């Protein structure tokens, strides 16, 4: 079977941006087209990953706006909203469009504009994904993270400091990512003494609110070399859902959507967790890096914290996790995040990651919507 290749990629600066969502999407989309020397009118399909442009800035219909701005009139367009996992779901849609033969050139652009809202307002936009019986109690995604973190520390006798070390590691990685929102190291003491947000988690356990965009350009592998000397292939991809009502889960420390989406992706790629050389995980909260690294099969349940303590997931460790700085330091513009995870794998696999370059030919990205409510796991490889 002809595999699906990614022949171009880009991401904008992440952070507090003056640009609005339309402009952010156009900036990233244009850059990805330039990366591969492809014109807008070469596009058959154009997907936009975005959670809430209507709620955040009163702009809907963004795929059509982007098609016009990129000179891609005539292309089939579609918006993909899967909350925080919109980016991963967009990769799935783009992959599907090429794998099915429906499109021979597909551009995916993910983006979100958030920072003009207060933290409280932005938290509420995101919390609006929750079920009414949880929303009415003031449940938020940070709140779910606090609930899971307390259970995890209790269940597996993990020290509180181990969560802090995820933040320290990802901030250290972000220093070498020119697109990251925070390019500043933090020490463990600062993390552990920062204000409590959702006990036992503190400010530095959480990703920031971010504006930004990222893009990927897909075509069949059989024609990839016509456009690019170097490219990567989507060797495996899977998506899965967990319960909408978070409290209905049997084990608050297991992300069943991560388990099931990765099983599908591993099988498609004919790979296992032991084959993965580097991974970008959805560290919206530090605890999520532990849970995903276990539920993806990298470590036994309850031992993910130990791997961070031992430096296994450091940039120079056996399995570097979040070389980009992760959502924690790179930032988390909702719809862009899953696309930006794949952008990081793309530059790493092409050997273009500069000071943060690591060795490897197989990368995995895990993009989580809600609190594991919907997940996409993608495996990218050198051809």
């Amino acid at each position, binding site marked *: 079977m002809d595999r699906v290749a990614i022949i171009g990629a880009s991401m904008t600066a992440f952070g507090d941006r003056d640009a609005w969502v339309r402009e952010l999407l156009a900036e990233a989309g244009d850059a990805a087209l330039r990366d591969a020397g492809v014109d807008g009118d070469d596009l058959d399909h154009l997907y936009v990953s975005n959670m809430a442009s209507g*709620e955040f800035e009163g702009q809907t219909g963004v795929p059509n706006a982007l098609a016009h701005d990129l000179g891609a009139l005539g292309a089939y367009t579609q918006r993909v909203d899967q909350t925080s996992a919109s980016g991963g779901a967009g990769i799935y849609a783009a992959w599907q469009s090429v794998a099915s033969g429906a499109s021979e050139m597909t551009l995916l652009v993910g983006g979100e504009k958030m920072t003009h809202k207060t933290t409280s307002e932005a938290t509420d936009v995101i919390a*609006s994904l929750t079920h009414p*019986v949880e929303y009415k109690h003031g449940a938020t995604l940070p*709140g779910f993270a606090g609930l899971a973190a307390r259970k995890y520390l*209790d269940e597996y006798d993990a020290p509180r400091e181990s969560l802090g070390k995820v933040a320290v590691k990802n901030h250290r990685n972000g220093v070498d990512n020119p697109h990251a929102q925070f390019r500043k190291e933090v020490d463990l003491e600062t993390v552990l003494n920062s204000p409590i947000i959702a006990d036992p988690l503190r400010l530095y356990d959480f990703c920031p609110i971010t504006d930004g965009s990222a893009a990927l350009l897909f075509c069949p592998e059989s024609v990839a070399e016509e456009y690019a000397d170097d490219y990567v292939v989507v060797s495996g991809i899977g998506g899965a859902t967990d*319960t909408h*009502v978070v409290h209905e889960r049997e084990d608050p420390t297991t992300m069943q959507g991560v388990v099931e989406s990765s099983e599908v992706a591993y099988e498609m790629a004919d790979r296992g967790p032991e084959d993965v050389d580097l991974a970008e995980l959805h560290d919206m909260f530090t605890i999520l890096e532990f849970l995903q690294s276990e539920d993806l099969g990298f470590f036994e349940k309850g031992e993910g914290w130990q791997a961070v303590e031992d430096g296994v997931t450091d940039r120079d460790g056996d399995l570097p996790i979040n070389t980009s700085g992760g959502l924690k330091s790179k930032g988390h513009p909702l719809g862009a995040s899953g696309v930006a995870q794949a952008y990081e794998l793309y530059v790493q696999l092409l050997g273009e990651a500069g000071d943060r370059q690591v060795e490897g030919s197989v990368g995995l990205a895990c993009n989580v919507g809600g609190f594991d409510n919907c997940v996409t796991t993608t495996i990218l490889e050198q051809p």
Partner: protein
Amino acid sequence: MSFDAHRCPNGHVTYPGHTRCPECGEEQTETVDLAERTGTVVTWTTSQATPPGVREPNHLAIVEFSVEGESVRALGQLTTANGVEIGSEVEPVYEEELRDPEAGIREPDSQEWDGYRFEPV
């Protein structure tokens, strides 16, 4: 007032109810009132950064109830976090308005705003 969990013919219990039982796909045909029962704290947190219209700090717990051999869980506000630990026993206490329906992003008429907080026993 009642704190209704929903049960299908195969005995699976969920809170809230669903169109079909998530466990077996059968229609849920009965309700079980949790209001007079005692539950156990599975985990809890105190949220210090809450959305518009939500009390701050907001103590939240996931609580497990036992209904004839089946367990059912509910997330809810705690009346206090004092002395609460994983495994603590709590009982539901009715509250007319858990958060200000007018302050948040969700359409006030789209859902109910009353419910049960959990009080340590």
